[in-house]
């Protein structure tokens, strides 16, 4: 049991100073100690290289432990799943370790365990990723396996059928989990069922049943190009040596024309509406409240980061203080902007005890209105320090550093992005926070999804009168009342 759920923080590396301590002075406990100046942020140097076939390398040396992390970021993910075939990117990634080169599925698994390495494949909206975590003593063998998986997947039919059956059972089991139902229904209602962002990344029963092995092979052939990819390398490596090694393994990876894609417009937002999804007997009501947010390229990235941290991005944020620490309605409340190539959702969320569903809704609405007022200077200052001074702790391990560089690769952020992070946050003013709050959080135009025990919560929710109420099923579709 842990005191709190985890909040996603921002990110770095600094220089050490401690204030002088008088040896025998009695400690005055009545106020917090005066601290010396925080260590200066200086991130580890980043080297970049590019192979003739267009594969980009981002390399960071970190020699603390004999370990290295590799993340290959391929700039295509679930957003470009073929129409009606949600889940293709996800299944393609899953199939990479089911047969590659001369290796069978079982041989790949055997080698991974024998080498004691971490090897994972996955996809999100914008990217497919293959990551490798390896002791340096095993690096050569690990990279040979990694290269097979990336360059020579074989997509065996029998393995595909096994994985597909497995996925269909996953989809059945999701019906047991109110939090997942809430996430999927929220996306579907917000974006509609034809927009890619309205579909689950793992697909639906219908889409998984319609996918054939050729769909995955085609996805691989259309998107897995050297010039659509960046390999992030962090750890106990020498940049020149590792570049030569990667060039010898990935130099023959083919280039290709990376198709441009244009997302359909998301549906226009209407007036605030409450969507109630019945989960009989649920002990808690799952809240997902928000609207369509911003793409990662937004000019308001830093202002939004600060504003959201105040609203629901840290333990002392307003939503968590209110719903948890003042009222005890929940174990944790939060908010966040999911920024993608196109505008992903802004979502405020919590699991609220069923008996306080109406009170929880009232408090959510209070905070979503209040954030549009001027934020007190002290609160802004605390939030900026949290984001700025917390940066180094997020650059401690090779895995953390590699992970922090994924958005740099994917969204073409400047290499000095993190070095400028502190200044970028510092520049945000009370007026900036208020402007983005008013621009991006509109209490009159919210989608409010509540998954809970309809019998016991409906009348209370209606009485709050946050907006008209619509009863929906697990997929977000209307049900006859």
């Amino acid at each position, binding site marked *: 049991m842990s005191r709190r759920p985890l909040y996603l923080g921002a990110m770095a590396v600094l220089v050490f100073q*401690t204030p002088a301590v008088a040896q025998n002075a009695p400690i005055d406990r009545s106020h917090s100690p005066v601290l010396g100046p925080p260590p200066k942020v200086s991130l580890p140097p980043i080297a970049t290289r590019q192979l003739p076939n267009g594969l980009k390398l981002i390399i960071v040396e970190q020699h603390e432990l004999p370990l290295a992390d590799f993340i290959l970021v391929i700039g295509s993910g679930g957003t470009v799943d073929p129409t009606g075939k949600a889940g293709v990117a996800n299944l393609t990634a899953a199939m990479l370790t089911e047969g590659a080169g001369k290796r069978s599925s079982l041989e790949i698994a055997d080698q991974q*365990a024998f080498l004691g390495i971490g090897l994972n494949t996955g996809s999100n909206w914008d990217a497919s990723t293959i990551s490798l975590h390896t002791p340096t003593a095993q690096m050569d063998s690990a990279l040979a396996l990694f290269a097979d998986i990336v360059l020579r997947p074989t997509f065996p039919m029998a393995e595909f059928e096994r994985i597909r059956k497995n996925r269909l059972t996953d989809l059945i089991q999701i019906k047991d989990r109110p939090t997942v139902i809430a996430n999927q229904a929220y996306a579907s209602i917000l974006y509609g069922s034809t927009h890619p962002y309205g579909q689950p990344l793992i697909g639906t029963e219908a889409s998984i049943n319609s996918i054939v092995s050729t769909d995955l092979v085609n996805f691989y052939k259309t998107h897995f190009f050297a010039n659509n990819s960046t390999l992030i390398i962090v750890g106990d490596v020498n940049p020149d040596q590792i570049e030569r090694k990667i060039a010898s393994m990935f130099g023959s990876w083919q280039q290709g024309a990376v198709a441009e894609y244009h997302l359909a417009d998301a549906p226009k937002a209407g007036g605030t509406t409450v969507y109630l999804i019945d989960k009989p007997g649920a002990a808690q009501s799952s809240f997902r409240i928000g609207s369509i947010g911003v793409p990662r390229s937004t000019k308001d990235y830093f202002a939004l980061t600060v504003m959201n941290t105040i609203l629901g991005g840290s333990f002392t944020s307003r939503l968590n203080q209110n719903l948890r620490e003042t009222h*005890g309605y929940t174990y944790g409340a939060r908010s966040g902007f999911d920024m993608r190539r196109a505008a992903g959702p802004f979502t405020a969320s919590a699991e609220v005890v069923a008996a306080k569903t109406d009170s929880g809704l009232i408090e959510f609405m209070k905070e979503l209105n209040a954030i549009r007022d001027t934020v007190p200077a002290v609160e802004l200052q605390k939030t900026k320090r949290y984001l700025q001074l917390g940066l180094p*702790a997020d650059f401690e391990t090779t895995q953390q550093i590699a992970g922090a560089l994924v958005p740099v690769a994917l969204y073409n952020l400047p290499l000095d992005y993190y070095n400028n992070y502190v200044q970028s946050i510092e520049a945000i003013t009370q007026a900036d926070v208020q402007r983005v709050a008013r621009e991006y959080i509109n209490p009159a135009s919210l989608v409010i999804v509540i998954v809970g025990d309809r019998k016991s919560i409906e009348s209370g929710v209606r009485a709050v009168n946050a907006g008209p109420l619509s009863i929906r099923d697990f997929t977000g579709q209307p049900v006859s009342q």
Partner: protein
Amino acid sequence: MALGVPVGSGGQSVPKIKYEKYTLPNGLEVILHEDHSTPIVAVNTWYHVGSGDEKLGRTGFAHLFEHIMFMGSEHVPVGVFDKELEAAGGDNNGSTTEDRTEYHEVVPSNALPLALWLDSDRMGFLLPTMDLPKVDLQRDVVKNERRQSVDNVPYGRSEEVILAALYPKGHPYSWSVIGSMADLSAASLDDVKNFFRTYYAPNNATLAIAGDFDPASVKTLIRQYFGDIPRGPTLPARPNVPVVELAKDTFLVMEDKVQLPRAFYNWPTVKLFAPDDAALDVLASVLTSGKNSRLYKKLVYDMQVAQNVRASQQSSRLAGYFQIDVTPKPGQSLGSIDAIIRQELQRLVAEPITTRELARVQNSFRSSFLNRMSSVQNKADILNSYNYLAGTPDYIQQDAGRYDRVTRADVQRVAGAYLTKPKVVLTVVPEGKREMMLTATGGAK
């Protein structure tokens, strides 16, 4: 960082974690580990009390108390703890197990005095400002934690049912850490005061600090902040628990809001660091870790009758148990899966595993030890953990060595010694589907 001696074939060595340990006159143990690679410091405090020290009727109290430790102390008004830490760029959390309660802050190195001020105030001065509304507030939060992690989660209530059946009534591990709703409701302000006075004294705590600090000035700071906190009374004698032996198999059924049933097999085994503990860990991996593991390959990969299967040796300070859980695919019967599991376990008893199976598991364990050392918070927690549970902070290489020494014969022996004995089998079934329950004769449709 200094490297230790390489162990095993072709593996990576597990480095030592260098440390200094000393004890203040009031009994507080201090462990220091310098690591200047990132300008941050982890302050990790273990109180040697957990849910295993609770009284019947007050289950969940140690964890509720952990929450209460964040509700302010004499010089730190409620709310200041988190606000000051966030304003300094720090993060914090706490956690409770059967055996211990842990608190930590990770801060930029300049903010180390802040973390010591906050931690020492709640160690020395928690009660003057404690009142019932604070207890009530965190009681509500913890009840919601229980709803979110147990009651509203498929199969979430299985653990407490298993523990109650596996351990005799009154055994410190016979209830879950989160506790029951009724017991959480019953906790009083007096309970909080008594618990604090009994267990939250410097002589029942260890402070581990890892990261970027100057050892001379940190010792001064520790003495100034913690040195004047009075030693507490002698701790109550720990419950002396006999080894758990079940007389016969127990078969249980629980209905839940689930689409698919799931069976949990549980055998009493041995406690953490007991001679057979590592071999049982290896056995669990041989059974279900990776596609080539025995049960995964048979049930999930080859026959495709199960969606998932997992095995683990769950060992703590006083006792341990071995658990296998399996979820059939839709339309597949637990009864036929049960027969296959029995066969596979018999095969492990009858003949040794292959050298390749052992090598895969040992190599994976060796890497996992290296991975655990990558952050200062992890290192501080490891030092505290070994200090309490193994008797010395300096134990990571010995711990890793346990797995290197496991032989094929050991795995065969522990399979026979523990997994052929009486067990507790719980089947969680969809509501109204009790006929899916596993029984002594297999049963289960």
